[in-house]
């Protein structure tokens, strides 16, 4: 390649044009990749915010007034193009199922990572490491099928309960918790363990009170991110939990709605026929609901991320300087 750049007359000799060109070119490529990738991501965020707000500007008469109904109503007795209808039940369903999944996953995941970092040896460690990787790769729909199949065999065919969804979610969540906690536990410097052992502290107390305590910020962050990872899962819940239109607090009885499933089922309903002029009717209310629910879901996930960061900040070892 010939000289592509104007060279300064450096007293120490200049870079060859090719190297300078390549360096500049790659800088441009990296910036380009970044900007290119930013376009869809910004576009997506903008779309969700823009369209997600529409539903909040529809009141119960179908008029253009801002209100919070969407967050406080459920879908009981809502049909057709009725301008009401919200996600109260779906928020609760999401919260309950995700919470249950967390309660199942965190102890198992944390103990496993402790095993891997502090105790593991030989084939068990190797196979657990490998299979945790495998588990990370389980497609979410397969997790849903698994939970569905387990309950179909144990309870009976067609069993769809909140807890089935929670089980499906924890299958997806456990490996994430194990991986992130493992990483965090490994970051705890050995010198702290040794300091503790040298004080005559038995291993398990060292692990619990020094290692886990030191890593707790990272572990909580990991757990929060794992929650964020599963809170948006749709396919497994569609299969394992089904849909519901009103509030259900009971994980062990009846179906539950969740935000992602809500989004899909509203999207599927499509445009509604509005052929009775006497009744308030908004033809594209279902699409509005889908976008609004997407907005709320993203906000929830983002606040989880934010909380994770705050927790990390709060718990992280103080450096004091």
């Amino acid at each position: 390649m010939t000289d592509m750049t104007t060279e300064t007359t450096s007293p120490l000799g200049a870079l060859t044009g090719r190297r300078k060109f390549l360096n500049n070119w790659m800088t441009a490529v990296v910036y380009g990749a970044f900007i290119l990738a930013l376009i869809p991501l910004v576009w997506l965020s903008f779309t969700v915010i823009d369209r997600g707000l529409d539903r909040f500007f529809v009141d119960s008469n179908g008029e253009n007034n801002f209100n919070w109904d969407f967050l406080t109503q459920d879908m009981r007795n809502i049909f057709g193009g009725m301008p009401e209808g919200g996600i109260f039940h779906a928020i609760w369903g999401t919260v309950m199922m995700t919470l249950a999944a967390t309660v199942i996953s965190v102890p198992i995941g944390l103990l496993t990572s402790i095993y891997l970092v502090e105790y593991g040896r030989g084939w068990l460690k190797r196979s657990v490491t490998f299979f945790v990787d495998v588990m990370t790769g389980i497609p979410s729909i397969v997790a849903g099928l698994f939970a569905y199949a387990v309950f179909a065999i144990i309870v009976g065919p067609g069993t769809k309960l909140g807890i089935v969804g929670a089980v499906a979610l924890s299958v997806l969540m456990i490996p994430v918790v194990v991986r992130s906690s493992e990483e965090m536990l490994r970051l705890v410097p050995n010198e702290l363990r040794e300091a503790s052992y040298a004080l005559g502290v038995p291993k398990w107390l060292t692990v619990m009170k020094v290692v886990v305590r030191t890593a707790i910020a990272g572990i909580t962050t990991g757990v929060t991110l794992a929650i964020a990872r599963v809170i948006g899962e749709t396919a497994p819940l569609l299969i394992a939990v089904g849909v519901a239109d009103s509030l259900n607090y009971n994980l062990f009885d009846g179906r539950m709605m969740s935000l992602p499933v809500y989004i899909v089922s509203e999207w599927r309903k499509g445009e509604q026929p509005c052929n009775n002029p006497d009744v308030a009717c908004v033809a594209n209310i279902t699409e509005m609901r889908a976008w609004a629910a997407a907005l709320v879901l993203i906000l929830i996930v983002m606040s989880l991320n934010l909380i994770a960061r705050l927790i990390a900040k709060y718990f992280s070892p103080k450096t004091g300087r």
Partner: protein
Amino acid sequence: SPSNEEEPTDSSTAGGTESDAPEAMELSGSLVGAGASSQESAMEAWRAGFQGMHPEVTVSYDPVGSGGGRTQFTDGATSFAGSDALMDEEEYAAAVEACDGDMGAIHLPLYISPVAVIFNLEGIDSLNMDADTIAGIFNGEITSWDDAAIAEQNPDAELPSTPITIVHRADESGTTENFQDYLVKAASNWPAEETSGDWQGASGESGPGTSAVVQIVQDNTGAIGYADASRAGELGTVALKVGEEYVPFSAEAAAAVVDASPLSTGANGENDLAFELDRTTTASGAYPLVLVSYTIVCQQYDDEAERNLVTEFVKYVASEDGQNQAASAAGSSPISASLSERVIGILDGIAAG
């Protein structure tokens, strides 16, 4: 009606008790059904209407699909089912088992919806087609809008040479099943011989659910698809050749074909209103491309409260009020007054105990 004079009983299936003020028809408890998703919108309206009349009642309907609905019903998991298709012999037998007593279950055609063939051509609202032309389009033989087969039947329309884009449902559905049943029976050139809920024609664009199909047709000039007529919106629709005339879809025309159809040969007695839809009808003003979705109920319920909930709810569905509610919410065709009366009569005869 006798159902309301019964003493309240504790029920396990219906999960509720009935109040002892019979005149006011105060019902309570929960009623569980499952089945066809085609009825989902109408069912939302019915449930809302019924729950409005009986605040203590919760009706739930799980749109698991026709097959799933029938299975859950014959397993005894639900009190009624919604189904786009008729039960087969096995299911009839299983229903006898599930329904208390040996009278088994019956079909009630309470959701009738014309299926419209929708298309997107600028400036054209309606086209006439016979079954063979529609089959020709959907099996991929006719690929352009100005094809002679179409032009012949529409001398007045200015047909562009736009290529035809076929749009169908990606998932299994009752709409597809009825559409294909029409083509199997009314057209001579449809490749499949048996009706199925899965697409059997030429492959084209497809999407999950009615709204996706409508969306795709809306977004693409030259596209043609089929969907619940209520969703046709601004799109062009096809008038079907029935006898010698071309009939556009309408609520009355759809209901008419049901009235003109004979009962299925496998029906479970005279109370079982299982129609063998006559797709080749020449009855004037009938629109044979309809989807009939049945409500399947038992002829007898052990549990008094359950019986009352089922009959009252289904009576409401069959009533003029209920049918109009569905028509406005879901765009279905109200059943004829005579059919409505007949259904209510049958429901009154459902036994308890």
